[in-house]
């Protein structure tokens, strides 16, 4: 019999499942890829076969225009891979379509979380705790200083600023996939029913969310409107457009950004953000550590982020952990 867990092998380009000849979230083109979610650092184009949720496949199709080899798996569904490996897709609560992947082989269970959060999100089903032997987690916000406030507080901040400056607009920088739609949906939940204006780069993704049943209310394109139409309105753009020439067409925008990094004052200042909104689609420190306690794995592997601190936490709690030093998974804008 093979050594325990020898069938699963971490590599700088992704986690390799040996008997299935399959990669999880590979950062290079491979024959068979199991993809957790649609963010570009996890979902790349050019694979022979791509196994993912229908939502993730639709997002990849939008970005890479490739339908070939797409194998959809619904949440809760298990597919049998080559070499007797079973893969089950379980909600991760990160963005539309995001999944943890449970791999089972020879009586051993491995969960790869991809990116995840534990907060409620109107755009995707919540993270499910899944017992396993090896828990492969992210650690994007893996420092004890990261504790995300309740999103209702951040929405209230945004709406009160909007109210205080009826002649200006609030320009919210938000990741085009996930964050933007979540912010819009949360604004709707907070009772904001006015039209929300979008940077052109956001439109298709928002439409795709709507096709999957996420109600975003009335959306308008900035390009179709005059400055005056946008006074007193919320405008959503990718973070890269915040300080760009594009924003010159807006009525005296108050620059906001929705990101977990906004917790640190100088990070917000560096990006010239006047209204930092601490909103993240990743687990914060308490959620990371509580999730590990709940899942209670035999061993934790950490894919990316602030792994030293999370390793230290494991040490302090006498738990086994290792850092995988994966390349290319980083979320500067989330």
């Amino acid at each position, binding site marked *: 019999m093979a050594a325990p867990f020898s069938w699963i092998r971490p590599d700088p380009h992704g986690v390799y499942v040996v008997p299935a000849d399959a990669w999880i979230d590979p950062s290079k083109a491979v024959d068979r890829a199991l993809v957790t979610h649609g963010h570009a650092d996890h979902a790349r184009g050019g694979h022979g076969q791509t196994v993912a949720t229908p939502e993730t496949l639709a997002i990849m199709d939008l970005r890479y225009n490739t339908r070939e080899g797409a194998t959809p798996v619904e949440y809760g569904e298990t597919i049998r891979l080559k070499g007797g490996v079973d893969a089950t897709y379980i909600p991760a609560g990160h963005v539309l379509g995001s999944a943890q992947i449970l791999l089972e082989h020879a009586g051993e269970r491995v969960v790869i979380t991809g990116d995840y959060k534990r907060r409620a999100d109107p755009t995707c089903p919540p993270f499910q705790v899944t017992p396993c032997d090896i828990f492969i987690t992210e650690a994007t916000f893996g*420092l*004890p*200083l990261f*504790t995300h406030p309740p999103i209702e507080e951040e929405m209230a901040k945004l709406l009160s600023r909007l109210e205080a400056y009826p002649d200006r607009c609030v320009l919210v920088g938000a990741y085009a996939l996930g964050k933007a739609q979540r912010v819009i949906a949360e604004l709707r939940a907070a009772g904001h029913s006015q039209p929300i204006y979008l940077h052109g780069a956001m439109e298709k993704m928002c439409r795709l969310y709507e096709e999957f049943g996420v109600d975003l209310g009335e959306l308008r394109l900035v390009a179709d409107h005059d400055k005056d139409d946008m006074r007193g309105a919320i405008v959503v753009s990718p973070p890269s457009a915040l*300080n*760009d*020439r594009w*924003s*010159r067409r807006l009525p005296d925008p108050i620059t906001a950004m929705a990101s977990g990094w906004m*917790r*640190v*004052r*100088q990070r*917000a*200042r*560096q990006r*010239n*953000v*006047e*209204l*930092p909104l601490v909103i993240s689609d990743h687990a914060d420190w308490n959620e990371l550590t509580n999730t590990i306690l709940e899942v209670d794995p035999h061993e934790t592997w950490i894919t990316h982020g*602030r792994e*030293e*601190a999370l390793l*230290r*936490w494991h040490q*302090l709690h006498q738990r086994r952990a290792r850092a995988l030093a994966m390349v290319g998974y980083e979320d500067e804008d989330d």
Partner: protein
Amino acid sequence: MEEFAALIDALIYTRSRNEKLRLIAEYLRAAPDPDRGYALAALTDGLDFKAVKSSTIRNLLKERVDPVLWTLSRDFVGDTAETASFLWPDPVGNIAPPPSVSEAVDALSAMTRANAMTELPRLLDRLDSAGRYAFFKLATGGMRVGVSSRLAKVAFAQAFEVSVDDVEEYWHALAPPYAQLFAWAADGEDPPDTANMPLFKPFMLAHPLEETVVGLDDYAAEWKWDGIRVQLVHVAGETRVYSRSGDDISATFPELVDALTIPAVLDGELLVRGDVQGGDTGGAASFNALQQRLGRKTVSKKMLTESPAFVRLYDVLSLDGEDLRSLPWRDRRSRLESFIPRLPDTHFDLSQLVEAKDFEQLAHIREGTRDDAIEGLMLKRRDSPYVAGRKTGLWYKWKRDPLLIDCVLMYAQRGSGKRSSFYSDYTFGCWDGDPDAGAELLPVGKAYSGFTDAELKKLDKIVRQNTLNRFGPVREVERTLVFEVAFDSVHSSKRHKSGLAMRFPRIHRIRWDKPVHEADRIESLRALIRD
């Protein structure tokens, strides 16, 4: 403390000066006494608590969180106070209400190094994260919220619709929490009695002369010295040295404090002794030498002997208790001239008048001057009183023409505030040899002014279309554009790869026409170095 914490955070994220003024003024109007006075002191670095240092906070936190996690967090955040505000465990159960600013100040004043470690937690446990941040900043000083003490005073003046000159004048008479200042401004009570206090009097300032021509019968000419403007005040046995902004810099120049023992308020240029440059009466070093002495809270003996400071006087505001500010310049000048012999000549001399038969000859004298301690000329109306601020037609500064050099645009960085979407800060270089023989460009300076808004738009476009590399907010630009750069002087510097540093570089002209290989070589710039 909550309102103060909210103010601090709002100021951190606000770039607009007007918005900062509005935020501070709003706070000052709304907050109770003495909280607002202490808050004002905190903003202007007017508080100092001996018991709490950055290391106190570090030690306090390391008792409560794992030291490794503390260090990793501190490295990520880059600020001890902020990291501590995040990592201090939130209180649980029944919590006392947060302390007011004044309660916090009283507690901090009463603390000793010995009991700080037990006293601080009592306060911290009553605050949330933002409150802890404000509290730590209050305790250790250095708010770093982009507010100068001048800005805080302007905000105070705006809040209560009083004159900022009056605020300046009374400010230094009082200590935090400035109860009398608020009583005067907010409640209309009598202003503080300032007669026997060594207070700063707002400076009289000059307009650039530009195209104006003045007659020398009406105006006297003086050299404009390249030092720092200072005011020396001696009242009731106490001497203070104030900078241009009204900051008390006495501690930086103790030799001047000792040298003035006669009741007077004097206006002049602070310079450092040097044997290279001089003017007529000798003895001033370049600004570079003076810079070594600026911004130091304590001065070593070595500094005092190697770079002793002296003041070249050009005006007198008060003498032997008599306020002279309403006298015409010519009378103040003669009072000054007859007063100077009463001062030690080791530390004071008189700024000489520049005699010329007419304006044309004066222009000629100005052009001929290449002394590094001289920036140009001052023209002062002979019949004008000494008035605070910049009043048109009374004083003019007539700087000598800048030095010019042709440089090549190398890097551009986004500006801030209004210019935040424009590449408006430019780094430029000169050739380190013959560009046709493979010489390279070495960066020699950085400028962000001297062009029009229309030119800025054009420059922004050029940067975007010719980007070679991106380094965060900086873009490396293909070498295609020549700037004619104006600067006041150039000095040797170990901090820069080129070995030199320009003073006040600004874009003089954009040479759209000039090929880059015709830009200047670095030798031309080196030849202009005077240290």
